[in-house]
């Protein structure tokens, strides 16, 4: 039955897809041109790239992970709260044969699909910049989507507890944006102060970035890949475990 929930999202998406696709295409295009090429030329001159690769090759896969994090966070804040509270779509859904479990499964599947879309468009832009040259680099698409899910389900659980949207901009400003800029996408985590390094590694993003980067640059160590995948899956599953009782309590009072 969860597929019906996905269908609902598809119908809504069909009205808005142009705007979404534009953002998913132009944002990586602008960032890779500005930071990757422009600023990258200074990095390459200053220290010969990062870890032996040109800066844009280093940046692009990290930025992909940071982008799915950002997109997933957004998807699981305002649209979900709208369906709980403002438009009461979930109440409408639960009046049919759908259960809370179907709703959650459908929403998670939808976010996964959206992240696959975002990552695919990003991969195309990356390839246009000559960064993703290998066939294996296509694996970065599901990896980045999983990174998105590791943020999506815990945030969904948080959203299930909210009475208004005030906390969302705070989370963006104090969690998502700091991770985006300092969490390993733009420069190595090892150049952060010691305490912050530990914080960075405790978040899913550091693992998502490393996984994506390893897949695109083709230097992924299997043991580390397993560690990164485990952390990402653990966050995604923990989120689902939390969201079930919280959303049930919220919707079936």
């Amino acid at each position: 039955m969860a597929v019906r929930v996905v269908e609902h999202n598809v119908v809504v998406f069909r009205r808005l897809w142009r705007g979404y696709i534009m953002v998913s295409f132009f944002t990586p295009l602008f960032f890779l041109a500005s930071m990757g090429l422009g600023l990258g030329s200074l990095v390459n001159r200053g220290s010969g790239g990062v870890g032996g690769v040109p800066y844009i090759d280093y940046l692009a896969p990290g930025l992909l992970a940071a982008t799915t994090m950002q997109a997933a966070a957004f998807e699981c804040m305002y649209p979900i709260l709208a369906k709980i509270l403002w438009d009461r779509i979930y109440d409408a859904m639960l009046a049919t044969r759908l259960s809370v479990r179907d709703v959650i499964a459908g929403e998670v599947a939808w976010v996964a699909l959206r992240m696959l879309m975002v990552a695919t468009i990003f991969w195309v832009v990356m390839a246009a910049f000559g960064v993703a040259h290998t066939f294996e680099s296509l694996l970065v698409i599901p990896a980045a989507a999983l990174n998105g899910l590791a943020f999506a389900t815990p945030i969904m659980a948080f959203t299930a507890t909210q009475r208004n949207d005030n906390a969302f901009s705070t989370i963006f400003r104090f969690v998502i944006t700091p991770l985006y800029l300092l969490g390993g996408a733009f420069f190595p985590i090892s150049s952060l102060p010691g305490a912050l390094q530990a914080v960075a590694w405790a978040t899913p993003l550091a693992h998502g970035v490393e996984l994506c980067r390893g897949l695109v640059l083709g230097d992924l160590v299997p043991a580390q890949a397993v560690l990164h995948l485990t952390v990402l899956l653990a966050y995604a599953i923990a989120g689902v475990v939390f969201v079930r009782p919280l959303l049930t309590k919220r919707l079936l009072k």
Partner: protein
Amino acid sequence: MSVRTLRIPTRSVRMIERNAMAFRRNWMVIFSGFVEPVLYLLGIGFGIGSLVRTIPIGDGHTVSYAVFVAPALMASSAMNGAIYESTFNLFYKLRYARTFEAVISTPVGVEDATLGEVMWAIGRGSLYSVGFVIVMLALGLVASPWAILAVPASILVGFAFAALGAALTTFVRQWQDLDIIQLALQPMFLFSATFFPVTVYPPALRLLVEWTPLYRGIDLVRGLTTGGVGPGLLGDVAYLAVMGLIGVTIAALRLRSRLLK
């Protein structure tokens, strides 16, 4: 009086007062906008800066990358604060809250309200640039005593973009149109010599970038905080002042003919 002629605004301060009262419970939203440019400074200025090391500026001497980036972020935060206020919030007031209709039924006129809105937007942008320059001082990123003028320079940047935003907002018919403004701001933020000097560009592209307003603002603020002060900065000042005056005039004229039918 004809709908086409503008009155000299004398009661703009009432509009500012109104906005300040409306924001009394919401000041955290304004305040937290200050965090983002600081994060950019830490991430890009110091994080990537350690990979870039030094950067040559104008007259042959070099500065650290963080010194180079900081003034650009200061100008950008003035722009962002001002234009967000004069697009999204102004549109909401015009279209949904109908604040303008309420305001002009008092002795406060359309011109007062328009200039008041622009000044309020400048105020929000200036708050960010003043906060930012304090961070720059604390981190030792100010390289010249001219930097004292960086605050009025940022206010000028805020004025130019607040006025531009207000003028554009009078043409906006739905929220989606505002996304187009946002979509234009992002490349401007990324390509206006914010993160790398214009010398990186091929000549034709460089000329194009040098004619964009944020480039002018960044050139001005950077000249002042790094001490690269020359007559070129007066050109920046003139550009931004003219842009602001044109913007605020267009906004007042259009709002006048729209509200006083």
